[in-house]
């Protein structure tokens, strides 16, 4: 049953994607209307700061970690066998 729901959603991937972008829009708009407590640092005062932080942090983390893995840390399965 659960599998059928998921199949149903996968066939309508555009709608799911639309909902996701709508959520992103909502998250940013929500940040405009809320009441802000006393800020801990400058980021707390900028509207939409955490959106930018989330996106950049995610992209940088993927690029840096994957990059380090490719050029340095990565080994074929079990490097200690030989």
């Amino acid at each position: 049953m659960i599998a059928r729901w998921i199949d149903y959603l996968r066939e309508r991937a555009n709608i799911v994607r639309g909902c996701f972008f709508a959520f992103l829009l909502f998250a940013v708009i929500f940040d405009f209307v809320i009441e802000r407590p006393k800020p801990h640092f400058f980021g707390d005062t900028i509207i939409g700061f955490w959106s930018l932080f989330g996106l950049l942090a995610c992209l940088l983390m993927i690029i840096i970690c994957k990059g380090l893995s490719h050029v340095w840390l990565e080994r074929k399965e079990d490097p200690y066998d030989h």
Partner: protein
Amino acid sequence: MITELFVHPTSWFILGALLMPFARRLGVQKIWLVVIPLLAMATIYRLPDSFGVVNYLGFELQFGRVDKLTFIFLHVFTLMAVIGSIFALQVKESGQHIAAFLYVAGSLGVTLAGDYLTLFIFWELMAFASTFLIWYRKKKRSIEAGYRYLLVHTAGGLVLLAGIFLLYQSGHDLSFGILSQEGAGWAEYLVMIGFLLNAAAPPIHAWLPDAYPEATVTGAVFMCAFTTKTAVYVLLRAFPGFEVLAIIGACMALYGVAYAVIENDARRILAYHVVSQVGYMVCGVGIGTAMALNGVAAHAYAHIIYKALLFMGAGAVLEMTGRSKLSELGGLYRTMPVTMIFTIIGGIAISGFPLTSGFVSKSMIVAAAGYNHQTVLLVMLILAGVGTFLSVGIKLPYFIWFGKDSGVRATEAPWNMQLAMAMAAFVCILFGVYPAALYNMLPFAAEYHPYYAYHLSETFQLFGFTGLGFYLMVKYLQPHDVSNLDLDWFYRRGSVQFMRFAKGPVTAVNEWVSNVYQSIGLRLTKALARAFSWFDKEGIDWTIDGSARSIVSAGDTVRQIQTGRIQHYIGAAVLAVVVLLLVVFLI
């Protein structure tokens, strides 16, 4: 006496472990597995403040010291034992259950210990018992990983013991309580290093991602809950407010997620997330305010449950498909949807989604860093949160249940595994929607309300845009069949080099020395022996024989003087008296 013995929850688990083979013989092993943790859990509500004080060799050992901090850890440990045992019901081998019970017993013993010696005994019991949870997987890799795990923990235990000895030498009474940062020296820091090894703090963390993925499916569920969280408990008890811990913790949080982003094996990803999440707790201990310490206790509770849930999810997939590498999995949503839903609940809970336990516990530590104006820590912890959501919230479920269809057709996990996952998922959501259930157990007085508009907004944005990042980079994140080097390289390579050194130069030197001995040493020894033999015969024997001969001839002479006639003796005596008188008068 017997009733007093069973006040201690550890006794139940030790009894449970000892009688396990009988329970199996009687066919009631499954009932036994559930009854024992439930009995232990019932016990913790009625513990006196202090019990089991024993005098041994002049030391006062305290097996039971109970306060609110002890209680919350005992509560989650016994609850986890119930869930873990239900998850393991289908395992027939008694040995695995015995190891798990002794491991839990050790963990409860450490939590209740009122002095360092009692703590150390149970600390070692934990390390010893948990090794069997790795060995019972019975693969070559597991056996090797188990040995490494045991060696590393033995080394850590020795460091801890050295710290305890130094504490004793400096006049400490060995009662287990708060140590002060001012004037802390070798003793305190050695104890801290011993604790940090079990908390898996880099650079002494590599045992964890090395061992946990090689443990048995059910063993890993126990292991992820007890070792590191017991370490968090002892750090919380002894080292609150040590600044170095705040820095170590924040680095741990980032180190763990960085590896989780690049790893391929599902259980290794989760193991790195243990490092990361325990980092939050170690950081909280270092911040040391009442709110931070409450956050540590709350996060330890929440973490044990959702991390176990994740390990159960990945373990169920491994049990049913025989695979745990993301590169070999994919498209399982059709065949294992229930496991998927529970694992995703675990995934969003670890990420700190609203309405899950992570949201109400993790944010306490982050907020405590903010209130304490430690902006760098704050940003590091939030950054680690982004990585957590990226790797466990999205990447792990996506590549197991969606992604490229691997063609693996499994059946759903057995009922008991699903029940255990359902229980853990229930706790994750319960704390999310009703935080008071968790907050009422917290040991310190500090007010915190997680649900306010700005916190929600921050969370929505972070997770929404992290999701966008994943969506943009999904091709780049495609898992490959590789593993990444970590700091265990030093001792794993180091041991190989040592063996090479032992086989090469050391053996060569050994042979050379024995050759030299054969050709020179042996002859020299023989010549020396001959020389000694000659000296013995010609020197010592001659001297001894000679003196014996002189004594005999002296004896002969004396015998001839003895005539045996009385007048000779009287004459001699008179002569002697005359000579004596002459001497006296003349001088």
